[in-house]
């Protein structure tokens, strides 16, 4: 199935969860936050949230800023 992550289209396996997606991207240990379809999803819920076709995922982190 196809989802959009940070504006990029990606093919992912059916049954993938937010937790498995984050791990696959190599971000498991990072201090990040995740939004699914414009709503924040808490880290402790990532393993339970299965992705669906056409989902919109945003993954953010802290960068230098004023």
């Amino acid at each position, binding site marked *: 199935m196809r989802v959009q992550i*940070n*504006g990029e289209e990606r093919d992912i396996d059916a049954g993938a969860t937010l937790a498995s997606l984050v791990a696959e991207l190599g971000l498991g240990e990072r201090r990040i*936050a995740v*939004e699914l379809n414009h709503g*924040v999803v808490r880290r402790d819920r990532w393993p339970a949230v299965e992705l669906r076709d056409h989902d919109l995922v945003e*993954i*953010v*982190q802290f960068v230098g800023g*004023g």
Partner: protein
Amino acid sequence: MSQPSAPDTYSLAGKTYRSRLIVGTGKYADFSETKRAIEASGAEIVTVAVRRVNITDPGRENLLDYLTPDRYTILPNTAGCTTIEDALRTCRLAREAGVGKLVKLEVIGDDATLFPDVPATIDAARQLVKEGFDVLPYVTDDVVACLRLEDVGCAAVMPLAAPIGSGLGIRNRYNLRIILERMSIPVIVDAGVGTASDAAVVMEMGCTAVLMNTAIAGANEPLRMARAMKLGVEAGREAYLAGRIPKKLYATASSPLSDLID
């Protein structure tokens, strides 16, 4: 012997700080320079931005590996947000990323000046306070806007001295004086400081703290400017506490006028 005086600290959203210099982390050459400049500044609160992770190349290092939340209070900003909804989303994401509930709210109303959209800032602040955030709003040097932000429950107000990154110093001292007289919550000047004397003037006027980024990161020698800003802020604060002499038009001799030689 006089009693040792209590340390000069201030409280913000329930935490006590000694350093009255708050610094941004943008525009440095790399994370190592960021870390060294911030150490030289003596700052205890640092601002950060919230941005998408590059999912194709996430990179190995992260800013917070260098500026650890156990040592610094991390103050996420909503820089780049032009709508209430974007600012709220950014704050909610920042809180979820796990550095606390303190946020620097910016809702930008104009690209050229980066002046805030004041009505949108007030509405966003009201909503964020309802959601439990400690809100530090960037705002124009307008006492009515600052009073409204105090009314909706902000932890401080952060009026600009001049446009972000302009280095012009305080453009309107009278507006800032009025704000300082009228506010009951801390006043932190945010944006527009160019050099150490600007920071000293801000503190001499009685502001609680001053926030800057470009003035340090953009200097030829950022580490040296970070130290200069630390000293400027401390000098200004000490002068404020000491109480300056009144300005007079005519001279008053410093040396005795009696017992002069003939």
